[in-house]
């Protein structure tokens, strides 16, 4: 069995859950296996949403599980594993999975591979694909034989769709909460004082390739000219060159504009997550090997500062 840990926050089931279920479907094609979703806390309504995607839903309900915290989650997951004995457990490589997975691995002695962009199970042996050195290198990993594996899957890597509709049975496991050392206090949403980039049709986005804040007006003028909004990758926001609310990516905004023009952005996965669903992606980067070209629809290998003025002229006409 493949056990997929559903991820939810603040009453919403997160997309990555379905992405993992779609990956699970693919794996089960090669080595036939049951697919189960593990729902810890959350709302009962989630069950309906998950039903078509898996064969079984294991639901552990308790107020202690509503907001994630590692200790109650560990106990609940242990129960689920005991009840289902899965071969492979999947968690997303998000702020949730990054926090939880290594803890499970240690406490339940599960072999763990984090941040996989591909996973396969052949003859009971796990193989995964990862990106290392900031996405500049890929690494293909084969694991030693184990009874059970734990992986975290990079969000945004798989389509959240399945080929065959399933119909899951629901199994509830009772849960008795104990006392825990770490306590969830509250969610904080950073105020958005700036314009909202997620509703823009055209986004011009800048990365570390902008070099220095003094260059921003050049791009800003260009964006204004074509009616686009200016966004950025994380280093630009980290340095405070643009407000944090302009950051695209996993810890920033997710955007789906008609056109995403990436200037001087290498295209790390954290960035890709936030923009890969844009209708048309155009990348300008000096480095022909920049990973951004892997997901862009159109690419230009050039210095952005040579391209911008000329392009601005052409678009004026």
């Amino acid at each position, binding site marked *: 069995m493949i056990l997929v840990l559903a991820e939810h926050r603040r009453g919403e089931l997160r997309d990555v859950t379905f992405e993992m279920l779609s990956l699970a479907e693919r794996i089960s094609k090669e080595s036939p296996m049951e697919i189960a979703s593990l729902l810890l806390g959350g709302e009962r309504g989630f069950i309906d949403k998950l039903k078509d995607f898996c064969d079984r839903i294991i639901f552990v309900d308790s107020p202690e599980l509503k907001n994630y915290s590692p200790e109650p989650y560990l106990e609940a997951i242990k129960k689920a594993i005991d009840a289902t004995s899965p071969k492979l457990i999947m968690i997303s490589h998000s702020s949730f999975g990054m926090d939880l997975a290594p803890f499970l691995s240690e406490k339940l002695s599960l072999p763990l591979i984090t941040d996989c962009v591909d996973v396969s199970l052949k003859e009971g042996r796990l193989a995964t694909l990862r990106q290392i050195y900031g996405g500049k290198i890929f690494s293909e990993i084969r694991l030693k034989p184990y009874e059970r594996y734990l992986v975290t899957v990079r969000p945004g890597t798989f389509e959240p769709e399945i080929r065959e509709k399933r119909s899951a049975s629901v199994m509830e496991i009772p849960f008795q909460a104990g006392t825990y050392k770490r306590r969830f206090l509250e969610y904080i949403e950073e105020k958005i004082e700036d314009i909202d980039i997620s509703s823009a049709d055209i986004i011009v986005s800048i990365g570390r390739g902008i070099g*220095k*804040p*003094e260059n921003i007006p050049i791009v800003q003028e260009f964006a204004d000219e074509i009616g686009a909004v200016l966004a950025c990758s994380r280093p630009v926001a980290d*340095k405070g060159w643009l407000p944090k609310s302009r950051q695209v990516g996993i810890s920033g905004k997710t955007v789906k504009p008609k056109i995403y023009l990436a200037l001087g952005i290498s295209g790390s996965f954290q960035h890709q997550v936030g923009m890969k669903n844009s209708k048309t992606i155009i990348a300008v980067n000096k480095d022909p090997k920049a990973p951004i070209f892997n997901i862009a629809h159109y690419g230009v290998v050039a210095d952005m500062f040579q391209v911008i003025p000329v392009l601005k002229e052409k678009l004026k006409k």
Partner: protein
Amino acid sequence: MIPERELFWHAGPKTLFYLLSLVSVSIFFYGLTRHISVWKKGLKKEKIHLSCKSIGSVIKDGIFAGRILKGDISAGIMHLLIFWGFSFLFLGTIVLAFDHYIYHFLFGKKYLFFSFSLEVAGIMLILGLFLAFIRRYVQKIGRLENKREDFIVLLWLVLITFTGFFLEGLRLSYQNPEWKKFSFFGLLFSNIFSKDTAYMIYPFFWWIHVLLSLSFISAIPFTKLFHMIASPLSIYIKDQPYFIVPVEEREDVFTYRELIQIDACTRCGRCVEICPSSGVGEPFAPRDVISLIKEKIFFGKKTEYDPKLIWYCTTCGACLEVCPIYIPPFRIIRELRAREIEDGTRVPALMAQTLERLYKYNNPWVSSKKRTEWVKGLDIIDITKEKEEGLLCYFVGCTTSYETRAQEIARSFSKILNRCGVRFGILGRKEPCCGDIARRVGEDGLFEDHTISCIELFQEYGIKEVVTSSPHCLWTMKNEYPLLKDIDISFFHYSQILERLINEGVLNFKKGLNIKVTYHDPCYLGRHNRIFDSPRNVIKAIPGIKLIEMEHNKENSLCCGGGGGRMWQEELDVDVKMSERRIMEVYDTGAEIVITCCPLCLIMLEDARKTKGLEESLKVMDLNEFVLMALE
């Protein structure tokens, strides 16, 4: 009656006067020792040498206001009047005391002459004070900052002078001596009161005068008046040898030299007037930084200043050129940077990033050690590989090696040398950073590292003659390396080599160029290294060239804004950049090409040309490029 004057006429009690004098002088000396004790903290192994030249400077620039007169005659005259007037009156008082206590000689004609001279001195002082008042409060000269202290000091002097003359007038009213016309100015104040009233109010005004004068003396060490003592010292020490204390041995960044200089600043504001950073409206003024530090060090004020302040200076050296008492604010600021670098928590992010790159990759530009990309397609000897002794070593420098526009300097210079058959070589991938950037921004540990690796490399390959692309490398090697290590190497700038080749007849221009050009003096080539003529001679050697000078040229040249680490501090820029101001001055000459001699100037001016939209009408060229163009 024999003309003479009775001291303490109708005044007293004398003992009270003596007591108060003692108090005043004690306060003065107490204040003085406080200053001296601070200076002494900065005096470690160095000795201050006796030097006739320095004494000459003090006489010329101190007593005769040489530098104050330069560029501002009215200021010079004002200072001369006040200085001489004040000095004579002060001397007069001493002479009177001598006459009274030690040897009576002031009578008869001698006394009349004495009295007359003091009248003249008094008038000089009054005129000087009047001029000062006009300059400050009527003309409102921009560079003068008007603090309360400035007003009080001026008023004080005015009051002392006038009470003095007023007293004289009262005395004359009462005594009405026949020689009174010799006290022609004091006479104006006589006859205001009747003889009896004058006699009655005289002691009262006498005490006012005495109290004003005595408190004036005791105030000297605590106000800007202290420049009377510190300024001549500052002029005196300007030619004393420099020292670089190895970072690990230094306790504080300031040496006696900076401490005296900080103490001596009169806040005259000439440095602010000339400073290119202040000039484009950046929130920085060299004088203000010095004032802040002075208040901290000498008056114990806990003023915190914006740590950003110390990163504006480009170390262009223009301020030193105009400071009447030879204070180099950029050196003082450099020491402040050294403190910040040591502390680390407030170093601007971009600067920190640049320094880290400099540390790891030996250049401030890219995280890569590929230093010789510019050589591609050229045939150049790598001294570290071919071990050919006695070659001229071309020290390319970081910016010229990495920055694509500046690489043209190295390419053109090498082509010219090859054409002239000069045997030369480069250090290739082994060439380190010369240490200029590290030194200028206060990263003195890194500067030591760079210096040592450069010197060791020169010695390893038996290099005796080095030519640099950058005037910055040249300055550092020529002036700062010897302070850390004894070396026997001659350093040149390429403009000097070009000039030499022209003089030797190896480099000659057959064809002429019919172009109007102007020349931008790089701060480090001109002001710092005093090389003004070599590049001009090279340009003039090309037939047909018309060289037009800019408004600011030679020692008055305007900085491009790239030195002192500012190249990597662009977040400090305001609306107008220094380079833009300079390029507009170029534009005003009507020249088609501006020629310069430094990779940083080249980049900055090239950038300014673009931002100012002068791409069509103006070209920025390095001297080598220009020479090569004339050759080809």
